[in-house]
């Protein structure tokens, strides 16, 4: 087990299985089809993201460097939270980008969804963690990877 310390963006704790996107996570491309067709597992629809394409995202500890793509990204994340189909948490290796921050904050303020968000976990975090690993997020921004 290894621990990493990041900054808490949206507070909370959780334990979940890791889903790792080594490259930028395109929020719109990842969620578009799943939302459109009511996919219960919310499988990733971004064909440009080989790491997580077609893998279920709901309830996972989504590990990523940053989000990329359309400025609708924040509202997409908010919508996913409103539908209760959000990841268990979002763990960023880099400082969070404004689009992801908007979505996470909108979800936190305007919905009942719980989705802790931690950023600045460092490049080593993303190099170490693999899809399927057990992740525990503590209230102070400590992330345990088993």
């Amino acid at each position, binding site marked *: 087990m290894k621990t990493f310390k990041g900054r808490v963006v949206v507070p909370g704790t959780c334990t979940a299985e890791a889903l790792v996107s080594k490259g930028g996570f395109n929020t719109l491309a990842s969620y578009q089809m799943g939302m459109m067709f009511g996919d219960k597992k919310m499988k990733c629809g971004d064909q440009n993201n080989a790491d997580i394409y077609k893998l279920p995202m709901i309830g996972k500890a989504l590990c990523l460097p940053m989000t990329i793509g359309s400025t609708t990204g924040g509202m997409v994340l908010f919508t996913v939270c409103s539908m209760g189909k959000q990841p268990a948490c979002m763990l960023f290796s880099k400082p969070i980008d*404004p689009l992801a921050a908007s979505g996470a904050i909108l979800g936190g*303020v305007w919905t009942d969804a719980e989705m802790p968000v931690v950023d600045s976990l460092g490049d080593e975090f993303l190099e170490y963690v693999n899809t399927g690993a057990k992740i525990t997020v503590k209230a102070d921004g400590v992330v345990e990877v088993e």
Partner: protein
Amino acid sequence: MKLTPEQQAMLNGEKGETMAKVVKTLVMYGETFGAERMLPITSKYGHTVISFGLKVMRPVYDLYQEIIDAGLVSDQKFTADPKPLDKKVPSNLIEDLVFKKIMYTEQKKYEKQLVELGITSEDDYTCTCYLDQVGNKPKKGDVLSWAESSAVVYANSVLGARCNRNSGMIELMGSIAGFVPEFGLLLDENRKATWVVEVKCTKKPEAQLLGSAIGMKVMEEVPYVKGLDQWLGTELNDECCTYLKDFGAATASNGAVGLYHIENLTPEAAEQGESLIAEGAQVYVIDDAELERVKANYPVIWKDPDAEPELCFVGCPHMTLQQLIDWTENVGKELEKNGLKKVSVPTVFTASTPVIKEFEKTPYAKKLKAEGIILSYICPLMYMNNPLCKKKAVITSSNKLRTYTSARYYTEADILSTITSKKEGKK
């Protein structure tokens, strides 16, 4: 973050619970990026990226209804991105069914909400809100609460206004509260260039291709571009602003650029020169070979990569009046040369309604119609935002449309040649 007494009162709920949540959203957004205070919005108008009533986005419209029901409206009127539907644009029966019965079922309801919240006019659905005909043109130094990546990068770079690359919904919250957190591109120190781009091409580079190359290289950082003034000159005239509109849209969508400086041309570069370049800035040299390399690496995700183009979009971002005139003339000349009367590929030019209205006053409108080209206010990106379009061989001169959809990028010259050539088997 230090709030003024009035802002603090809003956060404490003195203007109602919903306004308190709006302000809390902005405070959390600002604190995430180290903002120490809120800045009043100084632009006359806002701009929202959300112009579509998608069924799956119902929670967004429910939230907006909560805002409307609380008696809140935008503190400033605003323009919005282009609409996703226009019956003039070709679609088959299945597409019509998918668009109207499955995807955009909330469109009418949402447009009504925008009226209640404060959209400037029924005509003002466009990504090029800053064009004179539309009139949402901020002044240098204005603080904005906008979203729409191509409009934000234009406002920052060409107009010298100040705006972050906000997400949809956040921009409206800023417009409702009347202030935005001070961070990112609102601060002088973050407007310095961390990349120097040296353009060493043998001819004027295609705006959308150059923007794409720079966007993919610098991502969210600020580039200072040298060497472009030999073609663009040193005055921000119409032709030059049109080039920068298309260039900027590509930097913002192929990367995440929110501000660029063009040496001797854009306001901050003209005033401050190389003092805008941050210490230790990286260098990126672009020549003809580099542009070819970038273009050759675009993936072709058509089902049949050798398919004949079925549809062509020009105008993402929306075209200017002069672009419409130039394209009409150029298409006319090529058609005549090739012995054709109408374009050989169904083609849609897109522009804002105010620009279309101006264009329709010119003799070129009749000519464009005779050439068989459809002129629409639609957002091509939203039009293509469905699984059915993936099966269509769509071509475009827009690098933004290429990035977000299955459309294939052609240079403007290739588009012109393709849509004005006889198709194989046609006499």
